[in-house]
């Protein structure tokens, strides 16, 4: 199986897996006072320090969560719910469902929500965000990089805008973390979310960065873990493994990003050469290195996905729903695509695990499997 769905999840790095397994030995509860507890607490603190150093932030700004969705919900609900019926939230139309669905919930709770549109390449104009900010706006949420198109958004400019207008900035960094250069303390970002399994770490663990001095109400209530910000016994082995995964992702990152970009471009040019009329979706000038979303003329997303799966290539399309059927992608719809097109953008997301040889095989398979579906239309 050639795995080209790394924006959905990545395989755990063997070294991370080893770290994870070693950490499982430490069964103590980090909140316990005794020896095993202290040992666990030590590992937890070391991991927090390690991640803080990698993200260039103070360790006290990091809260461990069960993943990106929880981190984003914590920032949104924790900022808005304490003031019932109040406030205004600005989100981009292409945010992940973790932000969009949570903002819909907040809307039902009386929060006013404005969704900022994107252009046909999925780009967001900072001016449009500025126009959306009102006197009672509390927060702006614009992701660092989009999971479907790979588009990278102007975090610096949006953060600066938010700061100048006295508004909080929530940045969903789930796709960026491990792939982009992150120096959070130098950026005007108030909240930042990441998830370990997107950068070859384990599933079920993530983090929320909250700028020093900021506070938000907890979204989970119980014990005093994570300085009272997130109740519940920590997923210690996961956190230890996440720290190691982030270290590995960031070591030699520049070279890895270039190599990944080269690999993606090879796939992209190969497909464009083979399928006349193919259209790359998103901002080709400013994308994540491993992401390619492409529309092939006359090819339905569902059948392409199934045919490729059966031929041993894993990709994704649209937005998976609860039942496992695929709805048109809200991101592609926001870019102005027709419903049918928005369910047919084929997303290839590559990682360090993919090779030149895989790209070659994939190009050959794509041609064999999908070409017959395009001809004589």
């Amino acid at each position, binding site marked *: 199986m050639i795995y080209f769905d790394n924006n959905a999840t990545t395989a755990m790095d063997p070294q991370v897996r080893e770290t994870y397994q070693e950490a499982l030995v430490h069964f103590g509860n980090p909140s316990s006072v005794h020896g095993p507890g202290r040992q666990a607490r030590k590992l937890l603190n070391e991991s927090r320090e390690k991640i803080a150093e990698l993200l260039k932030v103070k360790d006290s700004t990091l809260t461990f969560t069960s993943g990106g969705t929880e981190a984003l919900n914590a920032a949104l609900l924790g900022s808005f719910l304490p003031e019932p019926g109040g406030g205004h939230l600005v989100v981009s139309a292409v945010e992940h469902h973790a932000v969009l669905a949570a903002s819909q919930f907040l809307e039902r709770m009386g929060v006013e929500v404005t969704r900022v549109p994107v252009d046909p390449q999925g780009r967001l104009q900072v001016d449009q965000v500025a126009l959306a900010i009102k006197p009672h706006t509390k927060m702006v949420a614009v992701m660092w990089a989009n999971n479907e198109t790979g588009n990278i958004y102007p975090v610096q400019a949006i953060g600066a805008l938010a700061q100048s207008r006295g508004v909080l900035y929530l940045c969903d960094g789930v796709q960026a973390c491990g792939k982009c250069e992150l120096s959070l303390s130098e950026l005007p970002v108030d909240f930042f979310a990441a998830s370990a399994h997107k950068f070859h770490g384990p599933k079920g663990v993530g983090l929320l960065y909250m700028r020093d001095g900021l506070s938000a109400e907890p979204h989970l209530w119980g014990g005093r873990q994570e300085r009272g910000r997130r109740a519940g016994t920590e997923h210690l082995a996961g956190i230890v493994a996440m720290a190691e995964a982030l270290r590995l992702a960031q070591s030699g990152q520049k070279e890895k990003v270039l190599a990944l970009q080269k690999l993606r471009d090879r796939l992209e040019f190969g497909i464009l050469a083979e399928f006349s009329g193919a259209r790359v979706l998103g901002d080709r000038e400013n994308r994540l290195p491993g992401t390619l979303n492409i529309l092939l003329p006359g090819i339905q997303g569902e*059948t392409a996905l*199934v*045919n490729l*799966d*059966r031929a041993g290539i894993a990709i994704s399309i649209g937005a998976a729903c609860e*039942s496992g*059927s695929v*709805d048109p992608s809200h991101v592609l719809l926001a870019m102005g695509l027709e419903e049918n097109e928005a369910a047919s953008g084929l997303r290839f997301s590559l990682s360090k695990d993919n090779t030149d040889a895989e790209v070659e095989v994939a190009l050959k398979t794509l041609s064999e499997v999908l070409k017959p*579906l395009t*001809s004589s239309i």
Partner: protein
Amino acid sequence: MSQVLDKKRVVCAMSGGVDSSVAALLLKEQGYEVIGVTLKLWDPPQGTTFKHTTCCSVEDITDARRVADQVGIPFYVFNSKTPFKEQVVNRFVDEYLKGRTPNPCAMCNDKVKFSYLLEKAYELGAYYVATGHFARKAWNETQNHWELYCGDDPKKDQSYFLFSLNQEQLEHTLFPVGEMTKEQVRALATEHGLKTRAKPESQEICFVPQTHGAFIEKYAPDKIGPEGDFVDEQGQTLGRHKGIHHYTVGQRRGTEVAEGQRLYVKSIDPKTQKIVMGPDATLWGNGLMAKGVRWVRPVMSGTQITARIRYRHEGAAAVVHLDATDQVRVEFKEPQRAISPGQAVVFYLGKEVLGGGWIERGAP
């Protein structure tokens, strides 16, 4: 499309019910390369008490997926909401608004299962689509064409819903449970421990959780007609009704019967929104006219056949007269009750399905 179709590859439509589960199992045992597919036709209303009673619920799809795992076949869900909405649900609603009684299952077979899904199967290189319908097909060597027959279980026969299948569709269709009884299907599912072995029968109209009237009011609130009058055959007003979309021909009027005899819906006039009521004796008709007629095996005008005018109708001896290419008149030997415009009339010769059409109107 130049996709090569593989005669050993079959897309099995799996609803999450026991019949299609067993269909998948049988095909796998017969050595086919089976791809299980559930068509996601409809989003059941969220947060309502009907959640578990409509089709395409997460539970049904989870069941289909589990059965596919048990049988050992790959499984996918295809989003078919757009064709279903356009070809089935919208037409269902429009028919009721015109005072007719639609048959959405036959529409769905025609426009979705054996057309949309068949196209998908072709795109996957599969020669066949299989379903869990209780029906059979047979190749007629001398005539060189496919014939369609009732399923062998008389209680479960679903051939009525399949009258519109053409030769290409029949060529590319498999009915693996057509020669079984429901009891045998359940027994086989039980023997193999399939998750759906004890699942109750699905309801008649999969997307309508309550009454069709309530569904239409919710689905098309701006299209429904106003309240109107119940009238008798002489045009005398008998009372008020809730809007014609609530009623079907042959239905007994609620509880407000004051005339001393039971009254039934005799006809519905969408122009005046009036519903004509009459005693049972006035509901019986000697014939009908049908449009959109299609033949699996064409017959000569004047042929004696058996006609079924609704799914649960046992069939009545009749003569069919061909009026135009797709239009027929049917004369029954004995009068039939509640001939409902919008329903399918399906023609049989013994167990064989000859064809059918959509009832346009009854004839006196």
